[in-house]
């Protein structure tokens, strides 16, 4: 069973290009369709994992591994997810130095770099849209982004401020506001 788990997650880690979220349908297919975890259970895991820090795909593999085989299961599943990208990136890191100064590679990467910025800008806009944020709700994130960008504030503080703001809003400001409305 541990072997099957390991190779299942190696497969998941190997064939999902372009970040953690691309892994979800694949994980679901492997894990739910094999009957390891019920569909509803998986959706629950998915929801909770979204609210955890760290790497999404790794976290969900830890959850699944733990459900099925305890602590060792979680270690094996996490290793399986990590291993393919670890090996591939290590190979690239070992050899990229030798190509970095090649004039062809320089030209190619001069073209790629601005595109990378676009590839970050698009998920930023779609995240704002999918959260259905109103204009007012964009003020805090905008201030956070500017503080990180222009003032070099550590994102850790912005994250903590977000948590504090959420708690303050829910338990303090929201109640006051509703009372005043009445």
């Amino acid at each position, binding site marked *: 069973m541990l072997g099957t788990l390991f190779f299942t997650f190696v497969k998941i880690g190997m064939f999902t290009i372009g970040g953690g979220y691309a892994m979800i349908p694949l994980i679901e297919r492997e894990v739910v369709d094999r009957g390891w975890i019920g569909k509803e259970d998986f959706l629950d895991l998915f929801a909770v994992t979204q609210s955890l820090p*760290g*790497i999404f795909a790794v976290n969900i593999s830890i959850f699944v591994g733990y459900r099925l085989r305890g602590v060792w299961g979680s270690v094996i599943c996490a290793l399986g997810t990590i291993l393919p990208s670890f090996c591939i990136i290590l190979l690239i890191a070992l050899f990229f130095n030798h190509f970095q100064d090649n004039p062809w590679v320089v030209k190619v*990467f001069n073209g790629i*770099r601005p595109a*990378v910025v*676009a590839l970050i800008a698009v*998920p930023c806009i779609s995240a704002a849209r999918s959260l259905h944020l109103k204009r007012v709700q964009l003020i805090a994130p905008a201030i956070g982004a500017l503080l990180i960008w222009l003032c070099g504030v*550590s994102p850790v503080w*912005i994250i903590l401020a977000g948590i504090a703001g959420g708690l303050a809003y829910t338990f303090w400001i929201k109640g006051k506001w509703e009372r005043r409305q009445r």
Partner: protein
Amino acid sequence: MGKEAKMIYWQLLCVYLKIGLFGFGGGYAMLSLIQHEVVDKHEWLTRQEFTDVVAISQMTPGPIGINSATYIGYTATGSVWGSVVATVAVCLPSFLLVLAISYFFARFKSNKYVEAAFTGLRPMTVGLIAAAGLLLVNHENFIDWKSVVIFAGAFLLTWKYKMHPILVICLAGAAGLFIYW
């Protein structure tokens, strides 16, 4: 191993534990944190190299958090062990958290404090992603007006035509080869 060399491993460990612990909101939101630590604070990579790592991550399998840890771990130390330390460190905080939560999963699922924290954290991830993008807008990545054209083209293809990131990167690379001939 010299004292200074040992120091780098410690720093890598601490930095990636921090990234693992505070990396909320997925890979893109994590980027600003990674860049803040790795480029601005510890100067293990230049902005340009960091952008290249992001590009490579988009084209290779696996989450960007792992990819950056493995790559930066190696470049910072010049050894495979650097990769191992950084990669394990970035997974460790959430690993412990996931195990802890597994014990009282049902209670965590609908905890009012967790929910409250997320009413603030969720919109903030938009700001974190925006910061990651803005930090990469600099003269190393945008060398002239042609870069802006490539940016606009890549944005349009991803946003409007939902083109796959790998394809966008390949096209941008080809465009670079052609334009800067």
